[in-house]
């Protein structure tokens, strides 16, 4: 088919879409729901106003949106007016054929008719020979004044670090001309140039992006509105330095490199996440505004001092989330000279459900005496576990004793991925007994149900907990 044959129908489709500004502007007098709705003929799919159809299509991947458009003549070019383009190679009928997929993206963009783009998302199994394709797609999106650009060029079946060839070289300078607010890059690289200015950019997410030490400072200084920055698997940075008076949210994730350093100066930062970001030297200055902190480090001898430094820098935050992996050998070292979290009102713990980890929870409640809300994210570790030396190490400790008198402010307990194991139940009992001002306990069961969370066990647990809870009429216990 020639392109000329296609365009007349496209023009008609455009006219239809623009002329039908249905319903919503009816404001006064008798309310009239204009077309096709005299109460006799049932409403059909074709009766839906165009903007509702476009709204629906904008949540679908582009392949689904195009499939929908071939349902009937009315919807023929509906997809070409949607405000979000979501290309996802994983849901493409032939996901292994990158050539076919690239052709499909090319063709779709030629037919795309909307004047501007809210979001452009691409998930593509990138290889170097497609770089000019990706260049043209990025250019297309920027010319359509895209607001959120998401390039995920990492093959969906490859794991990190197994890529062959260079990552996609992202033309960063292009963005100076657009209206981009959100940039999300995965498996790319870009040149760092000072003096580039990105007037609208608010959020930047870099995942497996190969950049040098200058790139982040240059980017931050070029984005006067930047509020959110996330770095994940950015191994090529050796010395990270972020100075920003505007940044509100910073995520540093998955990194380990010898002789590396992190230097953060962000007086208005509200949220700091440091997830398995292992540098040799940390320097956090002026984090006075910090409200939320998430600090995850594995529990090893080597990482313990780093964990202390980072936790020490964020200890004034109101909400702190920590990893409660319990390593028996480190219990003593960890509990020595503990940093007190006096300001913490909400404590979140990602934790296993072994006995050791229950003691870990008790230890954290000791260093955070003013906790009002306790959130436990349970990962079932009982199966992979031990039963060996740890009993010995904790033989002398009594969980109930350790919780007694420590829960003076605890009002709410939220347990996510609740399995209903004996240890969890025991802990909850003690929390009920000693939480003198406890008001609410909500248990959200593990979904999808893991093999340890059988319905019967959960039902039994709930029964036990409720019969026990009857002695605490002030506490509202819910399981969902």
């Amino acid at each position, binding site marked *: *088919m020639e392109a000329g044959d296609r365009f007349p129908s496209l023009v008609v489709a455009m006219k239809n879409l623009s002329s039908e500004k249905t*319903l*919503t502007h*009816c*404001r*006064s*007098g*008798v*309310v*009239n*729901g*204009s077309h096709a*709705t*005299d*109460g006799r003929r*049932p*409403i*059909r*799919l*074709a*009766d*839906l*106003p165009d903007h*509702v159809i476009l*709204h*629906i299509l904008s*949540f*679908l991947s582009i*392949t*689904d949106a*195009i*499939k*929908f458009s*071939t*349902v*009937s*003549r*009315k919807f023929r070019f509906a997809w070409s007016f949607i405000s979000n383009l979501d290309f996802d190679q994983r*849901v*493409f*009928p*032939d996901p292994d054929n990158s050539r*076919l997929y690239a052709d*499909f993206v090319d*063709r779709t963009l030629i037919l795309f008719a909307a004047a501007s783009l809210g979001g452009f998302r691409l998930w593509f199994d990138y290889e170097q020979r497609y770089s000019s394709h990706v260049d043209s797609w990025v250019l297309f999106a920027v010319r359509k004044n895209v607001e959120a650009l998401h390039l995920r060029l990492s093959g969906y079946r490859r794991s990190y670090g197994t890529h062959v060839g260079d990552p996609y070289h992202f033309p960063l300078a292009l963005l100076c001309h657009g209206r981009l607010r959100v940039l999300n890059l995965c498996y790319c690289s870009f040149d760092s140039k000072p003096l580039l200015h990105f007037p609208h950019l608010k959020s930047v997410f870099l995942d497996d992006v190969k950049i040098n030490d200058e790139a982040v400072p240059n980017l931050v200084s070029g984005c006067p509105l930047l509020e959110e920055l996330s770095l994940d698997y950015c191994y090529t940075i050796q010395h990270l330095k972020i100075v920003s008076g505007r940044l509100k949210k910073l995520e540093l994730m998955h990194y380990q490199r010898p002789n590396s350093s992190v230097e953060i100066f962000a007086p208005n930062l509200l949220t700091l996440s440091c997830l398995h970001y292992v540098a040799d030297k940390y320097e956090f200055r002026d984090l006075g505004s910090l409200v939320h902190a998430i600090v995850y480090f594995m529990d090893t001898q080597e990482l313990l001092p780093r964990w202390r430094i980072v936790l020490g820098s964020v200890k004034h935050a109101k909400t702190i989330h920590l990893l409660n992996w319990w390593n028996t050998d480190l219990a003593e070292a960890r509990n020595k000279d503990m940093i007190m979290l006096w300001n913490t009102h909400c404590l979140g713990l990602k934790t296993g459900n072994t006995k050791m980890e229950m003691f870990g929870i008790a230890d954290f409640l000791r260093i955070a005496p003013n906790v009002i809300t306790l959130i436990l994210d349970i990962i079932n570790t009982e199966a992979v576990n031990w039963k060996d030396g740890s009993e010995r190490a904790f033989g002398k400790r009594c969980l109930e004793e350790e919780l007694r008198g420590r829960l003076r402010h605890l009002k709410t307990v939220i347990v996510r991925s609740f399995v209903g194991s004996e240890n969890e139940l025991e802990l909850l009992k003690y929390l009920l007994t000693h939480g003198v001002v406890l008001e609410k306990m909500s248990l*959200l069961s593990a979904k999808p149900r893991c093999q340890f969370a059988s319905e019967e066990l959960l039902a039994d647990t709930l029964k036990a907990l409720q019969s026990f809870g009857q002695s605490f009429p002030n506490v509202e216990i819910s399981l*969902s």
Partner: protein
Amino acid sequence: MSESTEKKMVRLRSSDGEVFEVEESVAKVAKTLQDMLEEDCADAVIPITCVRAPILTKVIDYCKDQVMISSSSSTTNNPNERTEQERKAWGQKFMEGVDSSTLCELLVASNFLNIEGLLNLGVDKMVSMIQGKYPQEIRDMFNVVNDFTPEEEEEIRNQNAWAFERDPYYKKRSSSK
């Protein structure tokens, strides 16, 4: 009608003539009705000519729930307040069992009455129904007549070969080629 002295009531008439009496606060969840009530251009009974009674019942249920949530949200410790997760679960339950034709009616109603939350619930439901489906499956689900001529269909199929490649409805054709 002793209640109406305490709370102002609004009457709505569905397209099939049934009259519903609801509190003004409930009606005002619908932006279209809110505007009308505030501009005082509502008659004694507001006719809602594009919404049938069963659908209007469902819409009113939704509005009542919204009022219930928002009425106590000013207090610091609101028992009706929902977390993101609870809200999602509630929405799913509300839309459970809604079939394709009811869904279309709900979407038209919530668009017309300008109830953003309900419209979004409907859109979510619609998205989950359409996702991953082949054109013929969607036609069957929503009783849509295929109004393409055979020639047009051939063209569409050629253009979007990828979309039909594994479509069971077209397998026969392509294998006979």
